[in-house]
């Protein structure tokens, strides 16, 4: 201390020096290192009860769940049945259009000879019923879907109410 700091080298200065030397204990109580190491270990355990492995497993589970969701959403869309839209529909019920009308369940079985049935349907159709708006479904699948579509239409009939229109009277003409 005396090397670095200017101190008065008198009895009082020496007394202060002595007092300063004994101001802080030279050595701590024995076993300080062990106590520090034990304290550090305890504090560390208390701070992270899960440990890095615990957090890693949580992160892995979360990542797996996210991956599952990302894979499942497009797969679900791919597996859902295609929506069949009918571009044209017959004015008559499907049963009348073709005597051998098929239900959707039958459609698969009869798909192979659909062409022959279509020809038969055309032959059986009464003459004069072939108006321009009527289009015969070409395949059994189409026929089936048309039938389903027509059935759903039959459940919701459109009621048309007559509209009363008053005659227009123009006095100049009378």
């Amino acid at each position, binding site marked *: 201390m005396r090397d670095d700091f200017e101190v008065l080298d008198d009895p009082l200065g020496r007394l*202060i020096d002595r*007092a300063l030397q004994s101001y802080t204990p030279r050595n*701590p109580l024995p076993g*300080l290192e062990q106590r520090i190491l034990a*304290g550090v270990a305890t504090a560390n355990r208390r701070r992270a009860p899960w440990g890095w492995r615990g957090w890693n497993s949580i992160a892995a589970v979360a990542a797996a769940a996210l991956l599952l969701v990302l894979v499942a959403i497009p797969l679900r869309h791919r597996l859902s049945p295609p929506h069949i839209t009918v571009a044209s529909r017959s004015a008559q019920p499907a049963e009348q259009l073709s005597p051998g009308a098929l239900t959707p369940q039958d459609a698969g079985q009869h798909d192979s000879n659909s062409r022959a049935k279509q020809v038969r349907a055309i032959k059986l159709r009464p003459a004069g019923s072939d108006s321009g708006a009527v289009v015969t479904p070409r395949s059994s699948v189409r026929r089936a879907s048309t039938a389903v579509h027509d059935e759903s239409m039959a459940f919701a009939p459109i009621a048309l109410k007559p509209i009363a229109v008053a005659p227009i009277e123009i006095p100049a003409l009378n």
Partner: protein
Amino acid sequence: MRNAILIASRREPLQDQAGESSRRAGSFAAFVERHAAFVFRIAHAVTRHAQDAEDAAQETFLQVYRANRWEQIEDERAYLARVAWRLAIRQRKPKAREEELPFDLDMPDASPLDSAMDRQLESWLHSRIDALPEKLRQPLALAALGELKLVEIAVILGLPEGTVRRRIHTARARLRLEFQGLNERQGGAYEG
């Protein structure tokens, strides 16, 4: 043979991890061994309480361990002194009103009693050091350790070297004045 290689390759990272972990634990233990007493003294210079100083020392090493960089510290003592000082300041309880110890300088000159008087005088001076304002007491206490150079104390306290020197000088001058006042009150009993 192939299975043995597979097993060996699976075990290697774990063994490496365990080896590295034990090496680091050993390195940290050695680090604590080297500096524990020094850190304790720094903390004690601030807190003036053995248990508080030990707590501060423990907290210092815990911080270093969590920062995980005791192997990369360039000047270990300066770094630890700075951390310990900061933590000890936090640990230090608010200073109670310092009571001046009763002290009688008018003692017989018998030599066995000289040392007793010196001890009494020392503890009186300690109480006076404790009563100094912190900005004067801390540089003086750190200098009193006798282990730090002026420039190191300046780094620890975050002050210019000249300021630290001036504060230490002021602190000593105050102690002198107090002692001279006491001596005068006692009729100049202390001759040195």
